[in-house]
């Protein structure tokens, strides 16, 4: 640390101590404060080891015949082209899980956008009990999924509170073991659980909508509903794109809920998710190559959806 002190103050040209071999074309090849690189080195190493390298490794695994071997053992992992992708995409269980996530997104994403914008707009103008409201809205988001999953399964089980209120109207078989209801219940659960985060995003965006727009809309005789649709909705469009993107990515990551709420994607695969299948295939059944291929396909699907969302909701800026 002390050796770089002089360099930082610009007293002497950098000795290149932090990263040798970077060349010395200029007097200060690493900028005015080479110490910055040293300060950032742990983070850069972390990003490299935990994100960059594993992303590359995931692609590599998906194109090879990969299986778990004892640490240090030298085993052949031949290149197999698209075999793992074919295995994955011809498996009905995998296709089912992708369809399930499609159902999930179709329910979850619109509900998330509508409710979070509605509640954020109301909360933004609230004058009483604001702290209480904020706490209550964010509390599901900060709580562990496992903890709230326990309550939801208590509420929605065959003899649960929901069914005892509904009485004869309760679906049979009950919600979480009914193939028409299992996935929608998971979608409702995730909407409820994550809504606080999106309310937070919309609240930040609402601060940036110019007050004058509301005022001139009022002068033009616009009612509340009219102002909401002509001023608020376009005013927070950037946030909407972000909410769409984040909720889609979160949805594609679905694992805990089908694992616990519907007991491993039941009934009969009606609520499996791709990540759940990746866990079952990759780690339980020892086919990490096929699981990696599912992961790659899933990410590509998310990228396509995100691109389309950005294209159509991002609009004409």
């Amino acid at each position, binding site marked *: 640390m002390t050796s770089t002190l002089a360099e930082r103050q610009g007293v002497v040209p950098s000795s290149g101590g932090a990263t040798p071999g970077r060349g010395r074309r200029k007097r200060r090849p690493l*900028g005015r404060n080479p110490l910055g690189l040293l300060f950032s080195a742990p983070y850069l190493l972390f990003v490299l080891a935990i994100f960059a390298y594993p992303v590359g490794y995931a692609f590599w695994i998906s194109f090879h015949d990969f299986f778990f071997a004892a640490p240090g053992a030298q085993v052949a992992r031949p290149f197999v082209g698209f075999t793992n992708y074919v295995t994955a995409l011809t498996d009905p269980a995998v296709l089912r899980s992708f369809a399930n996530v499609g159902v999930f997104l179709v329910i979850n994403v619109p509900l998330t956008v509508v409710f979070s914008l509605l509640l954020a707009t109301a909360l933004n103008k609230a004058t009483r009990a604001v702290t209480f409201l904020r706490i209550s809205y964010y509390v599901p988001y900060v709580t562990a999924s496992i903890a*709230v999953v326990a309550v939801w399964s208590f509420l929605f089980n065959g003899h649960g509170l929901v069914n005892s209120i509904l009485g004869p109207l309760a679906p049979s078989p009950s919600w979480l073991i009914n193939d028409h209801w299992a996935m929608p219940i998971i979608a409702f659960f995730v909407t409820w659980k994550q809504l606080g985060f999106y309310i937070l995003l919309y609240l930040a965006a609402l601060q940036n909508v110019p007050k004058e727009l*509301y005022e001139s809309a009022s002068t033009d005789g616009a009612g509340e509903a009219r102002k909401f649709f002509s001023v608020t909705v376009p005013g927070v469009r950037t946030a909407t794109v972000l909410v769409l993107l984040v909720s889609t990515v979160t949805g594609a990551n679905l694992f805990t809920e089908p694992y616990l709420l519907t007991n491993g994607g039941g009934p009969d695969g009606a609520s499996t998710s791709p990540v759940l299948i990746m866990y079952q295939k990759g780690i339980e059944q020892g086919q990490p190559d096929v699981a990696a291929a599912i992961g790659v396909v899933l990410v590509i699907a998310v990228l396509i959806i995100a691109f389309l969302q950005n294209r159509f909701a991002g609009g004409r800026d």
Partner: protein
Amino acid sequence: MAATRRRRGVNADSLPRSGRIARSVVLALGAVAFLFPFYYMLIGSLQTKLDSTTSGLLPNPANLSGTNYVQINDRINLFQGLLNSGIFTGGVLVCTMVFGLLVGYALAVLQWRGRGVTFALALLVQVVPFQLLIIPLYVLIARDYGLADNYLGMIIPFAINSTAVIIFRQYFLQLPKELFEAARIDGASELKLLWGIAIPLVRPALITVVLLTFIGPWNEFLWPFLITKNQALQPLAVSLANYITNVAATASNPFGSALAGAVVLAAPVVILFIVFQRYFISTDIGSSVKG
């Protein structure tokens, strides 16, 4: 409605009476929808005998006891689970605070080559989907490095929270440059500047980051679930999930004991959040997500 509006003037926040009532109703319904499951979690965890009828909504003193807590504690050691969650979360917090502050400071205050790239990486990392990382990280950490059933293996993938890095940078950017120039002329080292000047000035950001970073590992399920098979090392989220899937059915009040575990898992975060809720503000987190 338009006529009322004009008479009231152009204050954007004033609403006709009916509108204000509608807004209050929406807000109140929202609060009930968000809070009710938590209330029900607490009530359910205290019921000696499960009562899922509508009368079970109100506490019945004859049916309240701590039996469920005792029962789940017999099967999974709640204290050990809390301790493991604490070690996992604490490790992530320490790494994020130490290395996150360093890189945040470097990004905001220091001029060095690679600064732009590093900031771009911190943004990019937030959109790398975890699905893609599960298999390679499992292969690397659990198999190649042999860090399964190890606190280090739990901590590593979450060690430095990139959102924290971006929040730190944001706050350090707001500090006046002259402050640092003056101290530098006096011969203070950068570490001293960071510790003595920059950090004390961004104290609210520290609390926001601690809160935000805390909920990640404390609530994380998938990763510790994948790499801890040894029950003595499992964070509470994992041991509770295993209890729900494998053991609960054999308990006399399976839902009650699961809910008792849920209360123990949820309580630390909820309490922390209520105490520090004013630091959990939209502008910080919103701006950091948007970059």
